[in-house]
């Protein structure tokens, strides 16, 4: 594909609901990252996938957050029982290999009411 794509672009949900965010990386990119960007703050690392290796989940803020990736393709980030503090832009990035430049998608803006 031309670049990293994410869907939906915007998501408004009620507190307590579950949400699922999708990321389609650039074809052939083996590494995939999720970041969170809160208003007025820099990006925070959430989780990293590399091929079939176990993901690095060290950045997930709580057990309400989880993510999956099918092979070297699509990834989904799931937030269960959303809280207002989960409101942020969630950005996905992919890179051709682990030690290479990361290319970012446009993000999903999540608003929890």
């Amino acid at each position: 594909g031309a670049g990293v794509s994410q869907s939906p672009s915007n998501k408004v949900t009620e507190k307590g609901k579950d949400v699922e965010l999708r990321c389609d990386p650039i074809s052939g990119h083996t590494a995939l990252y999720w970041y969170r960007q809160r208003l007025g703050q820099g990006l925070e690392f959430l989780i990293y996938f590399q091929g079939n290796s176990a993901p690095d989940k060290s950045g997930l803020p709580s057990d309400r957050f989880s993510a999956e990736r099918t092979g070297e393709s699509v990834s989904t980030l799931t937030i269960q029982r959303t809280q207002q503090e989960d409101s942020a832009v969630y950005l996905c990035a992919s890179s051709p290999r682990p030690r290479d430049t990361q290319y970012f998608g446009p993000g999903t803006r999540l608003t929890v009411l």
Partner: protein
Amino acid sequence: AQSVTQPDIHITVSEGASLELRCNYSYGATPYLFWYVQSPGQGLQLLLKYFSGDTLVQGIKGFEAEFKRSQSSFNLRKPSVHWSDAAEYFCAGVILTGGGNKLTFGTGTQLKVEL
């Protein structure tokens, strides 16, 4: 702890004026450093990166950055700003590990360009 600091939250410059955005890092070893730009509704676009070698790095859109180990800085510069450069700029760094590179971002600098 590893960190990247951008001291300026907002900067306003006139079109055609020169620009310098500050970035300081704190790492136990020399990190790899990046500058990204984020326009409204857009994802992050890589402007330039420093891995090693020449400390003056050239990027896209006429931007450059200089790595200064003695000052722990990686400031972004442009000789003449264009109105289309108005955006938010993020400095990021990483110590590469065996598993990948988790970027640590600064809080960003919002650039406004006055015509």
